[in-house]
């Protein structure tokens, strides 16, 4: 008659290993279906489906637009007792500007030319004689914005020596100007020195002609670059969707706790089935959303409108295997992070409490995101190879490596096996935390309490 053994915490009557039987599988699907249908019908789903691509393409087009727009002139005052220096500097700066525009135009005309050249701001130099009130005048000009910076040139006491030059920019964000000015000044000074030593101006010009490196790529450079863009966009989408829907899982568990529905549910089905159903349901919504975006992008890029809108630069260069890898790693990543989110949801009682804990979810994701730069330049570096095998980072990093780098076959297989295994462990632990946690209300559990929950079945 006794269904539970006496004086011990482990009940005999209940199996401690979650067994997937036909009955509970049916319940998992019922829960998932409900979750999916309720979510897909909401206005929130419609809004994020439309808004996120709009915002993202807004960023892309916005940066292209900003990049192609001609920036305003930059005014620099040159304070020097030698007015010739300022004139030479202006001539040198203009020459450079002209050179850049020429080469950019050439690149755009060539068939492999990638991005449209960014127009440089023109630097205009004004010569000034140093006087007693010069500094204060310059200062007020800087403050009013009439001036973007000034050079103070003090000639060396010894004739033929190098003058001391100080640059005062209006804002610290003008490092680019500083470099340009330093380069140009260097050229001017060299030219001057050469002149002093009797070199003819024409000779000096040819001596100072910059070396042009003709670059050629083994692979089709533009295809590679647009693959990089597409994969990076998908990387970002994966990051965003995992984060968004992971939090959705946690939030919906808290919602069930506050609406007390879970007590009805727990009197009917296993907590594990409830959790699994929720994760599958919410995950399917995420997949649907990504699917809609992918389909829309493919349609757009195939149609003439896409080409009209984005030009060559935005055309989608994804191979079938890249899409398959995306889906595989997306599913792995979602399962990994949403089961952690489920545990967080089960441990907390309100959104506010969740927000204190959600760094466990966000930090590893953010770390992946910060790796993006390294990955783009060196997808097969040791750091990338090691991190891509660490389960919390695998979904995003290995996806990136597999799409753009050259991981060995065993690395891909190992990453999938390791992540799947750790998902099993996390789901096991989470379902235990969930089982006890959903019935808890009041205070948030401490770490030892959570560890105790793991032993409780």
């Amino acid at each position: 008659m006794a269904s539970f053994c006496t004086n011990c915490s482990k009940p005999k009557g209940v199996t401690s290993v979650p067994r997937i039987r036909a009955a509970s599988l049916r319940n998992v699907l019922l829960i998932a279906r409900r979750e999916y249908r309720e979510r897909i019908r909401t206005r929130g789903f419609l809004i994020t489906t439309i808004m996120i691509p709009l915002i993202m393409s807004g960023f892309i087009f916005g940066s292209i637009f900003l990049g192609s727009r001609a920036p305003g002139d930059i005014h620099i005052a040159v304070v020097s007792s030698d007015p010739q220096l300022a004139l030479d500097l202006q001539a040198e700066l203009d020459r450079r500007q002209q050179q850049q525009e020429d080469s950019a135009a050439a690149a755009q005309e060539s068939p492999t030319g990638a991005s449209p050249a960014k127009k440089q701001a023109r630097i205009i130099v004004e010569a000034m004689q140093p006087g007693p009130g010069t500094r204060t005048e310059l200062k007020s000009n800087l403050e009013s914005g009439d001036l973007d910076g000034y050079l103070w040139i003090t000639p060396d006491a010894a004739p033929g020596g190098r003058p001391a030059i100080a640059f005062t920019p209006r804002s610290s964000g003008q490092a680019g100007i500083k470099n340009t000015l330093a380069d140009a000044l260097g050229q001017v000074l060299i030219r001057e020195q050469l002149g002093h030593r009797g070199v003819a101006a024409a000779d000096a010009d040819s001596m100072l002609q910059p070396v042009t490196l003709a670059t050629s790529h083994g692979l089709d450079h533009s295809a590679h670059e647009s693959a990089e863009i597409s994969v990076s966009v998908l990387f970002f989408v994966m990051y965003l969707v995992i984060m968004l829907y992971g939090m959705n899982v946690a939030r919906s568990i808290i919602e069930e706790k506050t609406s007390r529905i879970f007590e009805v549910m727990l009197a009917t089905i296993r907590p594990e089935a409830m959790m699994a159903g929720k994760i599958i349901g919410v995950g399917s919504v995420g997949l649907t959303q990504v699917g809609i975006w992918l389909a829309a992008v493919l349609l757009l890029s195939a149609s003439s409108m896409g080409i009209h809108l984005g030009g060559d630069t935005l055309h989608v260069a994804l191979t079938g295997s890249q899409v398959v890898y995306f889906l595989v790693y997306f599913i792995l990543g979602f399962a990994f992070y949403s089961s952690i989110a489920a545990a967080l949801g089960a441990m907390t009682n309100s959104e506010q409490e969740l927000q204190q804990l959600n760094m466990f979810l966000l930090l590893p994701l953010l770390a992946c995101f910060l790796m993006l730069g390294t990955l783009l330049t060196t997808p097969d570096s040791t750091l990338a190879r090691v991190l891509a095998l660490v389960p919390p980072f695998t979904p995003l990093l290995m996806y990136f490596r597999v799409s753009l780098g050259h991981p060995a076959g065993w690395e891909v297989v190992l990453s999938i096996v390791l992540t799947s295994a750790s998902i099993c462990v996390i789901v096991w632990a989470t379902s235990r935390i969930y089982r006890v946690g959903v019935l808890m209300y009041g205070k948030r559990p401490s770490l030892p309490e959570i560890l105790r929950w793991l032993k409780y079945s």
Partner: protein
Amino acid sequence: MPIVQLHHARKVYDAKVAVEDLSFAIEPGTMFGLLGPNGSGKTSSIRMMIGITMPDSGSVSLFGQPFARKSLSRVGYLPEERGLYKKMNVFDQLVFLGRLHYLSASVAAARARSWCEKLKITEALPKKTEDLSKGMQQKIQFIATLLHDPELIIMDEPFSGLDPVNASLLMDTLLELRREGRTVLFSTHRMDQVERFCDNIALIHRGQLVLKGSMAAIKASYPRNRVHISFDGDDAFLRSPNIESLKRYNGHADIKLRPSAMLADDVQALLAAALRHARITRFEVSEPTLEEIFIEKVRESLPENNGLILHELQQAEGSYFGA
């Protein structure tokens, strides 16, 4: 064979003992009252019965066998803390909950409709749950509990927040189900609401059993020394020496007579005295109510000098009688 049996069950949450050495059995086809004040361990006992939690020691059996998940499809549970998916359409919600209990979608839909007709709430079906009044949500939850035609129906505080008309509608439904052979477990602190209907009861206080048995036997073991009288006129008869205590209301008194070998004679004497002074519109003799029995029992079982519990009880007494 009892439907539910608790055998020396004990449940402790962190520092608080929720249930201590609790044993009782619920026989099939009966209406069982699990009664006690708030926080006495009723919900904890129920959660152990249906496997939401496990007893720390002792045992719980369901349908004559150790707890097994598959038994849950034979149980309908209305939790004290009601819960429905707020944003979900009522009809979809009922079908979903029915399907979780292994009904097919079409059967669940048909039953949801017929139950809603029976409980006069069909207009709620197309609405969102959050748009319903609290009482209507409760009726929907009640239907969700019964949709899969459970053999054991567990109702935790089923009438809290319901108006009298709807409360009696639900009570009638439960009585009908009991007549059809279902077992009903009532858990409530409102003892007055269920004492007329329960076949058997268990009274618990602070996680411990105070009293259990059949309602009829418990009542029979108490003298019929309570008199409820409604009158109009002089109340001098209320000063009779046979009266141990009384509560006065406007035109009404609840009287407890002193213990006596000739209680029946004392009652008649009281009636005669009352008739001499006033116009009597109601005169009723009864056993103590379940609440009175409960308070008496708890007081008996109290250890000496337990001022805190005594204070608690006096407060409880006030609220019970005042209600």
